[in-house]
């Protein structure tokens, strides 16, 4: 392969990886970025989405059913976590971290019980191999990437253009004020959790044919999501999408140049210097820790 | 000495988004004087305080302190030069006791420095009996007094007070007045408040602000100032 073809492949693959990262991170943007609640189970919700897809495949149901049922299930789990636990101590940051980390372990071990320890996979509903000049690429990967990107953009428009985005922000920034304006903050936070959980589950189901399904897959997703959310500027949906894409491309392109592990080091170092150079967060005092 | 400007703001402008909070505002503060600043809500008073103490950077214009340009100085360097600040909503350290709060203000080093004036200041402010209380346990008015005490203990040359009477009861306002009177001549004070009578009674000169500009500056009981106040408040009433 020529270096130009390599570059083409790296760009394509980077965009697909980036779109997936963006969609997974988007849910976290809503709960953590906008509402300031550090929900560490976010990656596990993604894993639950993928696991649901596998369970439905085992039950011989079509892939489309996973796209429908997985987000419903994960949204319900997210809402349950909020109602049963987080809401009871008013989303106090320290207690939230403890509780959601505990839940992370519980969900992970539950998945171990259901999936078993070995990786699982589901087939893609359609899988054309796309031939480009000099390299080939999986049609489903491209499709899933595009779907992730479109969904992310859709959510962006939905939240930014509707009253919902405003309400989500208001609910966090000043609960008292929001309540005096007759906004039911409890319900707004609930909607935020449902949306966030649903997005994570949808991303998990959508990518289940292109990633292996494993009980430990949530932790990586969580860490990557946090990084993407923060690089995009906490609470900015458009920023999250841009950061996801940028990170995906960056990882792909650095891998062309350097030994793989060094390439990852370089990606992390670049992300870090971006944060330092922008002096991010200096003017914001909302987050206590 | 008294006629030399301690600090001057020269044609300072500052806007937030599309809103012009300060427009080419210029003012001089003399050594040892109390300068009152009056104006309706949104006139630009707090922004003025911000650019003087360094929590806000002006878009244009200069801040001169004792003949040197401090426009680009950080808040900390200005504090070292002797510019102190009390906030509209009092800011003290709630985890520390009253004594510890005041002690931190006494000196900036880690060693501790002199705390000679600490007890005296505390007594003067009526905080003498509260020294070992946590600041978080104080009432709003006591917190206000504590913040003023901290500002005084940092031995400033210029004290910028942003709405010091806000949230104070009648009696507390009276004692605040007497404290400020006691300061006359010792340091310069920029007294920003919306209580016209309070400001006029304490200040030698009063500056009236409206829509980001100084509309009048003069003797506290002067005619110009009186008219300007009337106009500014009537328009916005």
């Amino acid at each position: 392969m020529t270096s130009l073809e390599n570059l083409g492949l790296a760009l394509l693959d980077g965009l697909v990886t980036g779109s997936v990262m963006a969609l997974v991170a988007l849910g976290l943007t809503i709960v953590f970025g906008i509402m300031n609640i550090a929900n560490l189970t976010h990656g596990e919700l993604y894993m639950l989405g993928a696991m649901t897809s596998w369970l439905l495949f085992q039950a011989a149901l079509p892939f489309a059913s996973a796209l429908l049922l997985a987000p419903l299930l994960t949204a319900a789990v997210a809402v349950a976590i909020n109602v049963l636990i987080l809401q009871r101590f008013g989303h106090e940051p320290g207690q939230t971290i403890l509780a959601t980390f505990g839940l992370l372990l519980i969900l992970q071990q539950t998945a171990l019980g259901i999936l078993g320890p070995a990786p699982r996979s589901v087939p893609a509903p359609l899988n054309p191999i796309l031939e480009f000049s000099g390299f080939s690429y999986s049609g489903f990967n491209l499709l899933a990437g595009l779907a992730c990107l479109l969904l992310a953009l859709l959510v962006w428009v939905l939240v930014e253009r509707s009253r919902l985005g405003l309400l989500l922000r208001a609910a966090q920034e000043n609960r008292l004020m929001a309540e005096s304006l007759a906004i039911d903050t409890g319900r707004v936070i609930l909607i935020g959790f449902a949306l966030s959980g649903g997005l994570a589950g949808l991303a998990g189901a959508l990518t289940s044919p292109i990633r292996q399904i494993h009980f430990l897959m949530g932790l990586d997703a969580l860490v990557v999501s946090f990084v993407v959310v923060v690089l995009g500027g906490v609470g900015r949906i458009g920023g999250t999408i841009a950061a996801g894409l940028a990170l995906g491309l960056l990882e792909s392109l650095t891998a062309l140049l350097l030994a793989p592990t060094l390439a990852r080091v370089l990606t992390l170092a670049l992300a870090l210097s971006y944060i330092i150079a922008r002096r991010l967060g200096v003017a914001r005092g909302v987050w206590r820790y | 000495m008294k006629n030399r400007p301690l600090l001057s703001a020269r044609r300072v402008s500052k806007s937030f988004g599309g809103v012009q909070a300060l427009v080419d505002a210029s003012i001089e503060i003399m050594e040892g004087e109390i300068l009152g600043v009056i104006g309706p809500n949104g006139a630009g008073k707090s922004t003025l305080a911000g650019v003087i103490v360094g929590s806000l950077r002006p878009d244009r214009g200069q801040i001169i302190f004792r003949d040197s340009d401090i426009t680009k100085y950080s808040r900390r360097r200005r504090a070292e030069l002797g510019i102190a600040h009390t906030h509209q909503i009092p800011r003290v350290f709630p985890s520390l006791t009253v004594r510890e709060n005041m002690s931190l203000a006494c000196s900036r080093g880690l060693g501790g420095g002199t705390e000679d004036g600490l007890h005296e200041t505390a007594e003067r402010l009526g905080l003498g009996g509260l020294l070992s209380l946590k600041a978080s346990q104080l009432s709003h008015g006591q917190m206000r007094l504590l913040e003023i005490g901290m500002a005084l203990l940092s031995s400033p040359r210029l004290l910028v007070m942003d709405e010091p009477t806000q949230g104070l009861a009648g009696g507390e306002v009276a004692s605040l007045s007497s404290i400020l009177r006691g300061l006359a001549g010792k340091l310069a004070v920029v007294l920003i408040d919306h209580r016209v009578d309070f400001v006029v009674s304490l200040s030698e000169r009063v500056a009236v602000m409206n829509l980001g500009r100084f509309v009048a500056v003069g003797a506290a009981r002067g005619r110009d100032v009186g008219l300007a106040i009337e106009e500014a408040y009537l328009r916005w009433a």
Partner: protein
Amino acid sequence: MRPRLSNLAPLVIPLLLAAAYPLLPEYPKALAARIMTLSIYSYGYAVCFHMIGVMSLGHAALFAAGMYGAGLYTIHVSPDPLMALAAGIASAVSLSLLLGGLAARVRGPYLMIATLLASQTIYLAALHFNEVTGGEQGLVLEREATLVGVFRPLMAEADARYFISLLTLSAAVAGVSLLSASRLGKLFLALRDDEEKLESLGYNTSLLKLTAFSVSGVLSGASGALQALLYSYVGAGYVGIFNSVEPVLWTLVGGPYVQVGPFLGCLLVNVLGDLARGLPRGHVLVVGVGLVAFSFATGRLGWVYRLLGVSRGREE
């Protein structure tokens, strides 16, 4: 604001541990030694978390710097455990200046992620330069070159391990207690309460953060170095993200009282984990349930601290 002798009341913890020594069966003794070593890391974390209110997700890097510093010194320079301990602490402190520098420039969630990225970078570097670091597999230190080895003529390994960690823990407890009562400690609290206000009083808050991070580096590095020098093993398995999250959990469970909380939290979480390990299956699940339960209990444990005579750390 001068520290008084009464500020040393939290030393009751190491005293109790010393008194418990003859009563403990062998395994609890070994476990206690392990927890003491780790709780020094917990104190190191709490200096940043509770005293200046900075949440870092990169402290595993400080622990690792102490561990690799001590381990590599032993292997490549000289098998002198005390010098190795110093080398470990020194490398952790240098790294803590880097993290502290980050804290001076970046805040809030951005700082969490910046520190996370920094420690992940170090983790991957430790993997990549495996000829030096041993990569994920790690390196084994010659036992004779470790602290335990030095004390072997005098006492059994298990005893040496217990008392060396106890001694270091006592120093950490005393240090942190005196620090929190000192003027510097008050400045740390003031920094946590209101950074801008402190700056407007003329204090250099960046310098204060650097100071807090280096104190944290000393403690975290000492803990990491002890891990290497007491257990003869150095490896990248200690640098992963889990190892940065663990002290967050310990200090949260232990509560805001910086003199005793870090130890109690570390103790509670580890003892729960150890008891659950005795279950034939599902012990991670039990730890998860335990953490959820702790999340409800934290903040209601004030009486425990009052009982121990600790006056205050952080206001709730």
